[in-house]
């Protein structure tokens, strides 16, 4: 990308917009940031790159005044400053768009923005101001819409507008694209480029390397809380940056070429589910089939029925008829999770804490949750504690889970380690079919690779695998076939390698939230099935 940005970014006579010198932050038991230095020039799009737990969030929280550094200096336009709270940060000209939005679903866009402002302005003035900002950056958003009717991309625009209203000279974006479709990502990048051209510096946090190459002028790479390197992403490859990020050579997923699939192991036929609650999604006539050894990816933007889909496959929600879900030829639609598990269907829901595992329970007890019958813990009607403990120990050892042992509580494990334990708990049960949601969510790259490899190996042993994920790259990396879930409906099954990202993006609902465009798109898709 060459743009007006470069002229400003290379203007070295002006002091840097933001400079961190030797910033250190310590939490009980962890050194989150160790002597980190960073320089952001005016009008520069600066990437902050690192794995989960590398210290990116801690660093920007100190810039935004949420945390105070234990040591080190923060300089703003060349002046040393202390930023005691976010209000002070905003006053300096620092804006931040968080990964998780804080919006009231039942209020309008305008009301949500008004609630987040430090100063009081009249509704009318505020609306005019919002429209001015929207126009200036070519953002599409209706201030009068109720938030619950908006897509995730539109919700993010609210947060961006909220930050832009303060005329920031540094905008921090924390993992902004994790919930966007490819088309929405492109729109976001347009906005950010315009902002940078106007002189606003952008600190862009991400671990998606191709985005950083497309968008950023400079990248600072953190690993384990320490500064590793500053580089020009245009001169690096995704692989070279990833290796800097992980500090090791990337392992490719090993999968035998030209694998043959066996017979159908798991299928849904016309599965429908009524909408539950105000913000639930109805499932509509879902049909698909997975063969032994096949990995089917389910792509889609969050909130399009993935949770409902998962729960009706795992048995937490029962189907209307037995033959809506078929496993190894047997109708199981009316069976609950225990009976489905007994027949060889294992599932891993998206949420680790409080759904797939219980934080206050030991790992052995968490093993009892799903493995008690399949792995033969039951003895004379009681759960044999030593067998449960031995199984948990086996999972810990096989999957290299960093835990003291089966008696550690699940809550004491890091997210990645707990995810490895949960995946291992299901995989070692040698299921006939495995349904997983977000298998590597919030897991560092090393662990994510191990989890994907374990899934591929399981499929290699003849298991039918269904992976629900919002991370399209992940799905394309290791799935055999792909479907897209949008507004509770599944697209047709596509073969990975034969389908383009643009097509998937369209199916994911690049126009989701805009009813008129949705109708047009739906008609288009029906007329020209991909």
């Amino acid at each position: 990308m060459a743009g007006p940005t470069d002229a400003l970014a290379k203007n070295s006579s002006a002091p840097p917009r933001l400079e961190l010198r030797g910033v250190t932050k310590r939490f009980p038991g962890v050194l989150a940031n160790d002597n980190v230095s960073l320089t952001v020039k005016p009008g520069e799009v600066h990437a902050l790159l690192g794995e989960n737990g590398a210290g990116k969030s801690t660093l920007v929280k100190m810039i935004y005044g949420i945390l105070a550094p234990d040591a080190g200096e923060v300089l703003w336009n060349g002046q040393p400053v202390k930023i005691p709270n976010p209000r002070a940060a905003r006053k300096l000209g620092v804006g931040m768009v968080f990964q998780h939005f804080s919006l009231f679903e039942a209020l309008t866009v305008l009301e949500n923005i008004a609630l987040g402002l430090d100063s009081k302005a009249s509704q009318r003035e505020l609306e005019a101001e919002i429209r001015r900002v929207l126009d200036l950056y070519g953002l599409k958003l209706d201030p009068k819409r109720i938030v619950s009717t908006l897509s995730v991309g539109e919700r993010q625009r609210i947060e961006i507008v909220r930050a832009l209203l303060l005329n920031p000279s540094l905008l921090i974006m924390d993992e902004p694209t994790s919930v966007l479709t490819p088309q929405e990502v492109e729109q976001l990048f347009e906005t950010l480029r315009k902002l940078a051209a106007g002189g606003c510096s952008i600190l862009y946090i991400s671990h998606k390397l191709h985005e950083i190459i497309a968008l950023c002028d400079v990248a600072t790479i953190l690993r384990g809380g320490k500064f590793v390197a500053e580089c020009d992403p245009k001169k690096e490859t995704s692989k070279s940056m990833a290796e800097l990020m992980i500090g090791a050579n990337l392992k490719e997923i090993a999968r035998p070429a030209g694998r043959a699939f066996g017979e159908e192991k798991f299928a849904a036929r016309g599965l429908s589910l009524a909408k539950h609650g105000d913000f639930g999604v109805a499932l509509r006539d879902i049909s698909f089939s997975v063969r032994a050894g096949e990995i089917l990816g389910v792509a889609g933007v969050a909130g399009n029925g993935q949770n409902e889909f998962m729960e009706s496959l795992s048995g937490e929600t029962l189907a209307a008829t037995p033959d809506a879900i078929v496993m190894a030829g047997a109708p199981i639609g009316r069976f609950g999770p225990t009976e489905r598990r007994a027949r060889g269907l294992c599932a891993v829901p998206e949420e680790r804490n409080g759904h797939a595992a219980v934080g206050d329970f030991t790992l052995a007890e968490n093993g009892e949750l799903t493995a008690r019958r399949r792995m033969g813990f039951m003895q004379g009607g009681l759960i044999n504690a030593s067998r449960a403990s031995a199984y948990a120990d086996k999972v810990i050892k096989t999957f290299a889970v960093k835990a003291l042992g089966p008696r550690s509580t699940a809550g004491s494990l890091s997210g990645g380690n707990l995810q490895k334990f949960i995946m291992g708990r299901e995989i070692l049960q040698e299921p006939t079919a495995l349904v997983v949601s977000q298998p590597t969510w919030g897991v560092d790259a090393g662990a994510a690779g191990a989890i994907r490899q374990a899934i591929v190996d399981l499929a290699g042993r003849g298991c039918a695998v269904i992976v629900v994920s919002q991370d399209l790259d992940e799905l394309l990396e290791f799935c055999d076939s792909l479907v897209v879930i949008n507004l509770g409906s599944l697209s047709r099954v596509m073969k990975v390698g034969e389908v383009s990202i643009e097509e998937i993006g369209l199916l994911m609902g690049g126009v989701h939230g805009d009813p008129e465009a949705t109708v047009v798109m739906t008609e288009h898709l029906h007329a020209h099935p991909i």
Partner: protein
Amino acid sequence: MRIRFEKRREPSKLMQAVTPVVAVLLTMVIGAVIFEAIGYDGPRAVKEIFFTPITASYKWPDVARRAAPLILIALGLCMGNRAKVWNIGAEGQYIVGALAGAGVAYFTENLQGPWIIPLMVLAGIAGGALWAAIPAFLKTRYRVNEILSSLMLVYVALQLLNYLVTGPWKDPNGHNFPQSAPFTQWQSLPKMLWGTPFPPGLFIAFLLSVVFWIVMSRSEFGLGVRVVGEAPKAAKYAGYDADDMIWRTLLISGGMAGLAGVLEAATQGGQLNLGFPSGYGFTAIIVSFLGRLHPLGAVVAGIVLAITYVGGQVAQTVVHVPNATAGIFQAMMLFLILASDVLVRRRIRIVRPQPSAQPAVQVAGSAM
């Protein structure tokens, strides 16, 4: 300098064991101060309430007789509270359990045989469970809050007792007193068993506490109770139906309260009268929490609460404290045990303000 509560990585096992003891000790200290302040001999009152029932062996039968129903009811409540199914109406189930037992007695007045007592006990369990089935039905069918429905049914049970002992079941030879006919020898249990100062109910309570312990810690159902209270979504994922757990925990806790009621009537009362309701069903809530919702903890906590009942009476006669004294101490114990729970999950840290080393421009806006 500030005091901060920091979240622990794991709930502290030590604190879990220590906080009930701390709560009891703090209750003694605060109680002594309060009673001293309002003009009684505070330390003496505490001594009479907490220590005399232990040191004076002639008080032991009295302690044992009160501990038995408290432990029995609390065992059921431990299970319910673990599942976060809040049965506040054990008192009502206790009364209905006793009424069901008395009903069997009413119809077997002229019969003899060792089968009558077991039948009464079974009827008592069934009566308590039936009374708890009402909140279970309302909760699972209409999502009615079980705290309210179970509590309100206590007052219905009281009226039922009132009606029966003043009406249909009134003792014809009772000089018009509101009481049932005295139980016959075939309808009664001994007040002390096997030469010990302990009533049969206490032995049953000890036995059942072990059964409950095994069920809670090792059975599939016990796992479900623990998961459903801790993480309802995980329970569903693990194959437990929330409504099913509501039914089972309420029926079990109701059945245990009914068992306590019928044993109390058959052992101590020898008949039913308006003085039968004792508040054990409410006090057992305190027992369950003081015992950390653990069946064996409930045994210890049941004895502690029984001591305060007996000691409260001693203190009334010796130190002339009011009738409500034991209740005040019991309530204080519940409050302190719940409040000290914060230490299980958090640790206290004293934070000193850090001296700022570098001269820095203070950004406008309030400093922390």
